[in-house]
């Protein structure tokens, strides 16, 4: 008989997989009540470290060409494809669905990722433009990245929801701190392993597992976070976060789970340039 080699599910911060700074973890059970794993229970200090990592790489990621970002994100989808079996097994364990349903979800998630990857180099041409002004100026408006965005992943599904919360923010050139839903940390950490091996620079994506409620107030008041996707928060926590986030004018939204370029634009700023004609 062979002894199982169990995987330790750790956090994903700055391209590395540290345990929680607090040393805490929590027990995760499958849909039948069997023990599944001990994922890390992230603390506010893990959030702090993740934001520092995301901020440090922000310039590099946002100044990469849109086409390059698109290639890198497409690469993530490619590597996900190769890891299908693992994603399926984890979806079945976490959600208790059939294998066919799990496969359907993985395919959906990969397709969704490809869809957002394609948007990287199109968003500026579709949603930017030249503005008619009376005067000898060319006047352009283009959407640009916001900076560091925090994202609370919803519990609608264990994998697709993560892609909804991560891919559009990256496509817009932002760096990200995502907080996995407490019930579905496994898919999130496995996805982070995919990201770590897909040419995404370390720190562009950071994933914390644990209790969103514990982390949300620190996200709300953090002065170095520029936007928050609160889709995975309950109404009370979300409202409180909106109040805290007013201090540095964070963009705080929550979304229905539909694929839409609006999810990319939600974390982009429209910037306008007046360029004199004839110079």
């Amino acid at each position: 008989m062979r002894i199982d080699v169990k995987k330790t599910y750790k956090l994903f911060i700055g391209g590395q997989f540290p345990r929680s700074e607090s040393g805490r973890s929590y027990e995760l059970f499958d849909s039948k009540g069997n023990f599944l794993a001990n994922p890390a229970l992230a603390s506010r200090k893990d959030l702090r470290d993740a934001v520092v990592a995301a901020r440090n790489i922000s310039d590099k990621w946002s100044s990469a060409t849109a086409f390059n970002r698109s290639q890198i994100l497409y690469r993530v989808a490619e590597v996900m494809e190769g890891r299908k079996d693992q994603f399926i097994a984890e979806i079945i364990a976490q959600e208790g669905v059939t294998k066919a349903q799990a496969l359907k979800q993985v395919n959906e998630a990969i397709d969704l990722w490809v869809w957002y990857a394609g948007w990287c180099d199109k968003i500026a041409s579709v949603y930017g433009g030249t503005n008619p002004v009376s005067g000898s100026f060319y006047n352009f408006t283009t959407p640009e990245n916001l900076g560091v965005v925090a994202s609370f992943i919803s519990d609608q599904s264990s994998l697709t929801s993560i892609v909804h919360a991560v891919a559009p923010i990256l496509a817009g050139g932002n760096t990200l701190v995502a907080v996995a839903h407490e019930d579905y940390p496994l898919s999130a950490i496995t996805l982070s392993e995919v990201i770590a091996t897909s040419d995404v620079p370390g720190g562009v994506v950071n994933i914390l597992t644990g209790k969103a409620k514990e982390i949300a107030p620190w996200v709300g008041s953090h002065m170095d976070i520029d936007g928050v996707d609160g889709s995975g928060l309950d109404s009370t926590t979300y409202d409180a976060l909106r109040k805290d986030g007013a201090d540095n004018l964070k963009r705080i939204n929550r979304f229905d789970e539909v694929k839409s370029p609006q999810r990319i634009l939600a974390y982009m700023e429209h910037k306008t340039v007046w360029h004199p004609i004839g110079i």
Partner: protein
Amino acid sequence: MLAIDGTETSIKSFLRTLSPVDQVGAESRAAMLGTRSIKTTSKLWAIDTAISMIDLTTLEGADTPGKVKAICTKAVRPDPLDATVPHVGAVCVYNDMVRIAREHLDNNGGKSIPVAAVSTAFPSGRASLEVKKRDTEDAIANGATEIDMVIDRGAFLSGNLAKVFAEIVCIKEICGERAHLKVILETGELVTYDNVRKASFLAMAAGADFIKTSTGKVTPAATTPVVLVMLEAVRDYFQLTGKRIGVKPAGGIRTTKDAIKQLVLVNETAGPEWLNPELFRIGASALLNDLLMQRMKMHHGQYSGRNYVTLD
């Protein structure tokens, strides 16, 4: 007193009397002291103390008078929105910027902040003694009251200790009462902890007021074990002669955590007498912003960001 008359023999026979450094012990002790947990109130004190010990430094080839003035303004009032933040220990610049820094400090309420100049052909030290002397005189004439000199590491490593000793003595003579002398050992090039200990004693015996780890141009720079070894040297020198010599780690100290580790080292090794800017300085530039952000966090209860401190 130390039996050193400047000859090679006297220096070597004195350095032979020093106890060797236990490499494993020094590293593990430095690592152990780095894990001390610091309570909130002590941390507040530590942050302010660290700010007051910073030698705010800009040593780039691309330095301009504008940049030097900007860091001088920052030295006087690190956080423009909070007058309770103490001013830094000193401003550290290249020779040709000394006068600009001195005048800007004087005109902006920073009369009490000294200007330190790196001289003696910083950072390599590869120039003739005449040039080094001239360099130092020039810095003092322009208003520097602290001189950061580099030792000749080539001479030290090849055993030519009398040359190193004589150079420090010579620069010290020029400084006299007019300027404090900090001697940069450049520990990243000294290879062993034993060499660091020897170089520390050599510098102190030759008249250094401060011993400084590094130029900041070589890595590794101010690692905790190196600072520990230097603090032990300073402590032993005090027991031997009754004279307190300062220590200045420089290079690689970028976060509040790093800075607090240094303060713990000082307190536990040399003693609390060294916990003041007269005897302990930290050479840094990026560190100040991190200290300020931590300070804001402690006072306002929320994490701060780079948008709320000045760009350097």
